[in-house]
């Protein structure tokens, strides 16, 4: 089995290439995805090799991207849409929540919209406004959409292909600050044997506190776990991977063991994923909890200017602080 060391961004690129190779109905569309290869180069080289009918530079209008992709899907295509940055998905919000999410239901199952909407999301790259947001809650609250996020190159490579192969409409959140992080990728492993798309996974086993994260925060939590281990505390870090539907079996099992849970995400706290996780865990593990489920999140402010974003973003220390607090309760 060939294992290559790839960045997360390159793993996505190779995964997209595989998807284009494997199914002639797959088309990539978005702003600057062609010659430029996307502002993050995730589609680098694909237009050159697959042509401008498979990798389509679109006019600058997100509603148009998603709306025309719906039409292509009705026609039998499998569109993979790139939204350039998290903060630019909102012009397409109506097409996503009222059309993409609802057409299968509206048709009583007769129509499928097998669309993937790729969104580089999250902060930490020193960008200007609208380039660092975490909109997952907006989509997870929307029935009819599935939402996933990858946290390492291996998952990036596999999950993008699984998402494209799935008939469900999927919001695919890419942890943009991790695009340049490297890891091993089994590039030849058959997709059918891969870990399922809509399943959480223990990223690091532990016994004391369950820490839940996804996307960019998985690395942060793994680092926190390393630090905690030095202090003699074993954190179990779970990479949620699928944000809607959540896969909580492994989480419940873990929390019942540890009695403590901390949820970490960059998005604001109020009515975020952390709230849902806290509510579900509490309902399921009520008699096991030694402390309430605590949340370590971005604050309930707009994403701030770059020079204070490190204060805004959950980091190792804030995760450890919350871990501590689950003991003091």
């Amino acid at each position, binding site marked *: 089995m060939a294992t290559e060391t790839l960045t997360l961004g390159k793993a996505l690129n190779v995964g997209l290439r595989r998807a284009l190779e494997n199914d002639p109905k797959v*088309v990539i569309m978005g702003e600057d995805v062609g010659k430029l290869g996307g502002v993050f180069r995730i589609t680098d080289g694909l237009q050159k090799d697959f042509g401008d*009918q498979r990798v389509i530079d*679109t*006019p600058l*209008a997100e*509603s*148009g991207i*998603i*709306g*025309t*992709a*719906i*039409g*292509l*899907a*009705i*026609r*039998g*295509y499998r569109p993979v849409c790139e939204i350039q940055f998290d903060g630019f998905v909102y*012009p397409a919000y*109506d*097409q996503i929540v*009222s*059309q993409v999410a609802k*057409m*299968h*239901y*509206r*048709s*009583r*199952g*007769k*129509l*499928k919209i*097998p669309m993937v909407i790729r969104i580089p999301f999250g902060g930490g790259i020193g960008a200007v406004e609208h380039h660092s947001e975490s909109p997952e809650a907006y989509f997870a609250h929307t*029935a*009819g959409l*599935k939402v996933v996020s990858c946290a390492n190159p291996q998952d990036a490579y596999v999950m993008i292909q699984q998402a494209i192969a*799935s*008939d*469900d409409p999927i919001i695919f959140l890419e942890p943009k600050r991790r695009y340049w992080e490297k890891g091993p990728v089994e590039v030849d492993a058959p997709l059918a044997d891969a870990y399922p798309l809509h399943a959480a996974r223990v990223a690091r086993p532990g016994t004391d506190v369950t820490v839940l994260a996804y996307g960019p925060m998985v690395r942060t939590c793994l680092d926190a776990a390393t630090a905690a281990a030095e202090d003699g505390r074993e954190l179990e870090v779970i990479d949620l991977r699928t944000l*809607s*539907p*959540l*896969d909580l079996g492994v989480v419940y099992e873990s929390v019942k063991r540890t009695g403590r849970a901390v949820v970490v995400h960059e998005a604001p706290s109020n009515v975020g994923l952390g709230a849902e996780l806290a509510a579900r865990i509490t309902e399921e593990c009520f008699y096991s909890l030694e402390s309430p489920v605590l949340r370590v999140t971005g604050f309930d402010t707009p994403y701030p200017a770059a020079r204070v974003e490190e204060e805004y973003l959950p980091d190792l220390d804030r995760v450890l602080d919350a871990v501590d607090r689950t003991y003091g309760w």
Partner: protein
Amino acid sequence: MAKGDPGVTTRGRRAAPRSKKAGAGKAGDPELVQLLTPEGERIESVTGPDGTEYRVDFTDEEYRGLYRDLVLVRKLDAEATALQRQGELGIWASLLGQEAAQVGSGRALRTQDMAFPTYREHGVLYCRGIDPIMPLGLFRGVDQGGWDPNEFKFNMYTIVIGAQTLHATGYAMGIAMDGKTGTDDGEAVIAYFGDGATSQGDVNESFVWAGVFNAPMVFFCQNNQYAISEPLERQTRIPLYQRAAGFGFPGIRVDGNDVLATYAVTRQALDNARHGQGPSLIEAYTYRMGAHTTSDDPTRYRIASEVEAWQAKDPIARMKAFLTKQQLADADFFAEVDEQARRESVHLRERVLAMPNPEPTTLFDHVYPNGSPLVEQQREQFSRYLESFEGSAH
């Protein structure tokens, strides 16, 4: 009227001066393509602003067929309105007054063409040969459409104003990508929308896209003069068909109460599209004779005399006058059509009344093609909850 390819010609070339300029001789609107006056006079042919000559050469049978279509769709529509009044439908969006715009464009479609309607194109649906019961589940509230757009070459009704124009454009891009343009067998798309919809970002984005990708499609705007209560002046200060020029493709205004002109103009535009000549916009100038929907009260915002003025331009009356004058049809024929319409509407009514209410737990069906554990869990919990009442007075 035979479906597929009725014996009609429209010619996409510079015409000799024997044909009139669009609407020439008509008072008020020099820009309107018209082949049948409100009085039922035929205009032999009309030359559009780009020199295209519009004419129809229907057989007698086909003329009668168009009349039959008009009467039938009006009658079925009236039946639906009645059903709503009696509480059998939750709401109804009537096409009253817009029959010619819908029958003319609907009959202009070829079998292979794809239509993207709003919520009002019952007449187009009928002309596609689709059972008129199909959309009534939506208005009765037993489903939200529930059909396969590809099976009927007719998308589900779209309620969010303008959203479907982008779907239509994407679909048309797909036709081009599939190499299905350039011949007589080429495919084309028609996207329906209203005058109000022209203000939506989505509709204008679809104009951008269609222009850039030279999409094989026709934007068919039924300008019925109102978006609920708002008159046309709230959406534009120039005629709507002129919008197209700003995006680099042709726009034309047709008398939307003239089934012949609407047919000719739409047929030409679709054929241009299928031959790879790209998009165009048709503004069918018409009038919404009834309320916006059965929930609306138009007396609050428009005066009776306006409605009366449009009454004189009725699409069916002029077709009847034409058939009568030309001795293409007699009283027996008109009686027979009315009888057919009555029969079909009774049949429709019976089937609407027989529509079963959905089972409660069907609300959990078809949220995702691949299902979802969350939804399944809720379905099970709710089923158990419902069962807990069984046998009780609930």
